[in-house]
């Protein structure tokens, strides 16, 4: 029984990890009042850059860093447009997603037939030998451990530090934060770049560690699912983590069901993550007070001190 469960649970964690990175990053962005719909595009940029750097250097760590840098660079374009130039955040986010898809597809052509060796999981000494939890939790690729560190970091930063308090305050009322004397635009820049960097790492994890390969549009909507997860989690890091693994589970269940020869069309199983996303969105959104009490008040609204 446990023998059958271990690979499923381990695979669930692995499948949820890109969502953990992207959604935690977007959570911080949205907490500052910025809605960046370009997660899908930033993940794709990160995935391609990570893959290319890993191929060139032979090191997955270099790949992850390249993904981080590419995601942040993509976010910088968005930040320039929306924060400095005051463009509509929804339009700019869509543009970033479309651009990211186009850029990565164009620049990624030469890498489509390249193969990377599957990375070895990094078993934590002693912990990995624990029954059940050991192989599930502690025999994972390094980026999975890093995603947990990121979770701890984001939770601690937002709720235990003064800069985190300032970030949340900016997201609630940029005008008030400005009146008190905080550099609203600068803070939003940092949050947006952080979100992009994390989306980039999430993408790099997909191409370098999870699959590992490069294919056009390989994120297959994970960036959008990450956006939905942030709403589903009512902007709380703990629930983002839980939601990401829930989706990891849905993805994995589909593979195992197909592997087990379930008498259902494969397309129906493949559509489960998307249908589940719609389901959880409806579940959370139907009570407007849940959103009203948890969503950053200024989410998606442009702010400029001179206006």
């Amino acid at each position: 029984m446990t023998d059958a469960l271990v690979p499923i649970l381990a695979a669930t964690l692995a499948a949820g990890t890109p969502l953990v990175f992207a959604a935690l990053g977007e959570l911080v962005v949205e907490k500052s009042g910025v809605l960046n719909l370009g997660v899908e595009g930033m993940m794709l940029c990160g995935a391609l850059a990570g893959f290319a750097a890993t191929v060139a250097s032979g090191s997955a760590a270099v790949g992850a860093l390249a993904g981080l840098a590419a995601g942040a660079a993509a976010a910088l374009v968005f930040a320039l447009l929306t924060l400095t130039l005051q463009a509509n955040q929804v339009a700019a986010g869509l543009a970033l997603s479309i651009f990211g898809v186009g850029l990565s597809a164009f620049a990624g052509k030469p890498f489509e037939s390249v193969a990377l060796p599957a990375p070895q999981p990094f078993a934590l000494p002693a912990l990995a030998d624990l029954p059940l939890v050991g192989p599930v939790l502690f025999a994972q690729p390094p980026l999975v451990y890093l995603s947990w560190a990121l979770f701890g970091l984001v939770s601690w930063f937002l709720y235990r530090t003064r800069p985190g308090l300032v970030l949340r305050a900016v997201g609630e009322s940029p005008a008030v934060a400005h009146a008190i004397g905080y550099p609203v635009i600068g803070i939003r820049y940092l949050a947006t770049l952080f979100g992009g960097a994390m989306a980039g790492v999430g993408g790099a994890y997909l191409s370098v560690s999870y699959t590992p390969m490069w294919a056009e549009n390989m994120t297959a909507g994970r960036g959008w699912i990450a956006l939905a997860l942030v709403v589903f989690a009512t902007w709380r890091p703990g629930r983002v983590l839980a939601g990401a693994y829930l989706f990891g589970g849905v993805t994995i269940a589909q593979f195992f069901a197909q592997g087990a020869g379930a008498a259902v069309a494969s397309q129906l199983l493949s559509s489960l993550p998307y249908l589940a996303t719609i389901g959880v969105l409806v579940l959370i959104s139907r009570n407007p007070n849940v959103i009203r009490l948890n969503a950053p008040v200024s989410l998606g609204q442009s702010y400029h001190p001179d206006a």
Partner: protein
Amino acid sequence: MRYLSPLLAAALTILVGYALFSALGRDPLAALHAFFVRPVSTANGVAELLLKASPLMMIATGLALGFRANVWNIGAEGQLILGAICGGGVALHLEGAASGWGLALMVVAGALGGMAWAAIPAFLRTRFNASEILTSLMLTYVAALLLSYLVHGPWRDPQGFNFPQSRMFDDALLFPLLVEGTRLNASFLLALAVVAAGWVFVHKSFLGYQMRVAGLADAAARYAGFSATRTVWIGMLAGGGAAGLAGLAEVAGPIGQLTPSISPGYGFAAIIVAFVGRLNPVGCALASLLMSLLYLGGEQAQMELRLPAAITGLFQGMLLFFLLGADVLINFRVRALRRAGPAAASAGQAA
């Protein structure tokens, strides 16, 4: 002023294209010529331009109605697929019985199919307050899988050597060609009709006015008693219906059957077309020509310059980025001029 930034954005895109081609080691002028001029230097090329512009202008016009009211339907690609499935399904069932009303029935089925797919996010938004941005996009993936299931399974052509595609539609069920020897068909006229109807709705109708108010100031719309629910429904259904028509026009036009991929991303490109066309139907029609040219240029680049056709997507994204940036720059110039105005006037008084 409003119409300056699309031109500026197009110019900047071409400029970056020049730099990009140079960086890739191609002669930039020759490459730009191949990309932007050669595709439309023949009558057949112009016909292809109009053919590809048709779905773009239809969808963009429909989406623009919603975007004006802050209804963000970004799932037009999925609605297009549903239009193709429904219209195509009718075509497959009309085997042999085809006549004049067959195509009309397919057009209706296509539009209704797109509307039905768009109705799901509209319902979830108005009833459960769920973001139509995310739900409409998720449904796009589901629509693609649904089409894949149909052409791999129940609707696969038994004589098709196991290819995942349906049987070819009867000739009588395809849009008649407008110009013999080209692929340009009567769906182009349908697209023009959609643009005209969109223009009347946006500029002349009271409903169009109400949706504009909803987009500019939703508290004012509530104050005046304009229904927010109706705004969402109209916005979503307009985009869905237009996308459904476009999907039907693809399968009952150049493709002639159902295949797993019937659109090279028209539903997403139309979002850009809508913005570049300033959310104005006539603007959308013009912008769709530019976007269509980017598609043709991408194909040309693949053949002549040995560059991936994905370069089209790169140019599309850049175009929208530059548009958003140019908008701000132009607004900023206007603001700066206005600011300079009164200051200069009061300085004059002081002197």
